[in-house]
């Protein structure tokens, strides 16, 4: 087994690769449904290059990371600990970030969409006075394509199509705007975003 692949890598030239990766993520978030290539690093399995690059670009010791289901492996935890230094949160911890009192910071939830699905109720969606203190999901899908559910809203000229795994949950997420979570969908080296501001219609 190739040890390097197992352990997962980081940026070779962090300032520049992180900058390029962020520009891709920013363009994705600003234009919901647009699909771009994002694979600056090789994260450990089962994280996809796009999911790993997104996490390494955005997360750091101030942002707790939740590894959902199959993504929660020892290698993945070690990779997060070594390259990102973010605290790992357990499913049972999620409630405390969503609760009142201590203002929660941003949380990154990473994993296959199917694994994240069961935790949506526990992820922070911000507070009415601080809607930004909310979760960002990095959700792996088997494939991403510009087909299926119809998207409209800020960042979309007319209508964009994106192969969402389901629609109702994103309609609910949009209905409580400005509260809500924001999603980066990843698949292999591809990334597309679905912020809470996007209106979703089933195909």
């Amino acid at each position: 087994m190739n040890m390097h692949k197992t352990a997962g890598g980081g940026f070779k030239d962090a300032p520049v690769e992180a900058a390029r990766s962020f520009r891709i993520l920013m363009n994705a978030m600003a234009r919901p449904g647009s699909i771009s290539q994002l694979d600056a690093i090789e994260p450990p399995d089962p994280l996809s290059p796009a999911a790993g690059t997104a996490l390494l670009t955005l997360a750091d010791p101030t942002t707790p990371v939740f590894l959902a289901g199959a993504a929660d492996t020892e290698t993945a935890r070690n990779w997060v600990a070594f390259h990102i230094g973010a605290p790992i949160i357990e499913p049972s911890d999620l409630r405390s970030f969503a609760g009142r009192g201590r203002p929660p910071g941003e949380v990154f939830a990473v994993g296959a969409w199917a694994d994240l699905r069961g935790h949506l109720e526990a992820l922070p969606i911000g507070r009415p006075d601080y809607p930004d203190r909310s979760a960002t999901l990095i959700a792996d899908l088997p494939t991403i394509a510009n087909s299926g559910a119809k998207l409209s809203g800020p960042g979309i000229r007319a209508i964009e199509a994106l192969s969402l795994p389901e629609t109702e949950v994103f309609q609910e997420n949009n209905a409580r705007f400005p509260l809500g979570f924001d999603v980066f969908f990843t698949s292999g080296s591809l990334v597309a975003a679905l912020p809470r501001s996007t209106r979703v219609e089933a195909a």
Partner: protein
Amino acid sequence: MNAQAYNFAYLDEQTKRMIRRAILKGLAIPGYQVPFASREMPMPYGWGTGGVQVTAACLVPEDKLKVIDQGADDTTNAVSIRKFFEKTAGVEVTEATGEASLIQTRHRIPEQDLSKDQILVYQVPIPEPLRFLEPRETETRKMHELEEYGLMHVKLYEDISRHGEISTSYAYPVKVEGRYIMDPSPIPKFDNPKLSDSSAIQLFGAGREQRIYALPPYTDVQSLDFEDYPFEVSKAPHDCDLCGAKDTYLDEVITDDAGSRMYVCSDTDFCSTRRQNGHVGRLGTPVSSEVA
């Protein structure tokens, strides 16, 4: 000093990540002001420290940077910020609006339509549009939370009752996607229509006030008004005296102590491009006849 002594684009990586997360949340909640831990920059507050931090977090080595101050590429603020990023990020700079991939601006939107490959970064002094009506942050935050914007309409109404029209001529408040009221930074209200449905990503940074907010492309941005007093753009009722443009925002320049004045495009790149193309205004001379 050797530019190698700096990290790429000056800021350290953790600071950039913090700013980048704020930008993404800002894009996800258009018009909402995201708090961020603004850093001290090697320039005083009021010189665009917010815009500089947003620019630093967005720049990639392939960028071509343009910086304008009130539309001009050649004023102190614009020149020093451009030099700052030439030195700390090693990016190419340009004065041509069409060539730039990232434009940092103080108080203007370029006349030329922006494309989908461009990013416009605004320097913002006071990001809170309600601040001069309600000084307490706790209260303005609650007003945004509850969409309680009556006070802003009272202010515009008082303008009308006193002056017969809405006299706010710059930093004219807008409503974003029917939800948040937003300060578009002190751009003239002439520029307000360009905020809406733009192809470019628009980012706003307020350094002293520690706020970042954003407009994704194709976002609906409406200037506040009343049915019987609709929003109107305004500009000096003249043509540009150098290039003859009829539809640009103009600066008034006093030319002597006898009351003579001329009006010139505030967007210097737009004006010089027109002059290069042979347009001549009332006091202008053809570019070809000028001594270099």
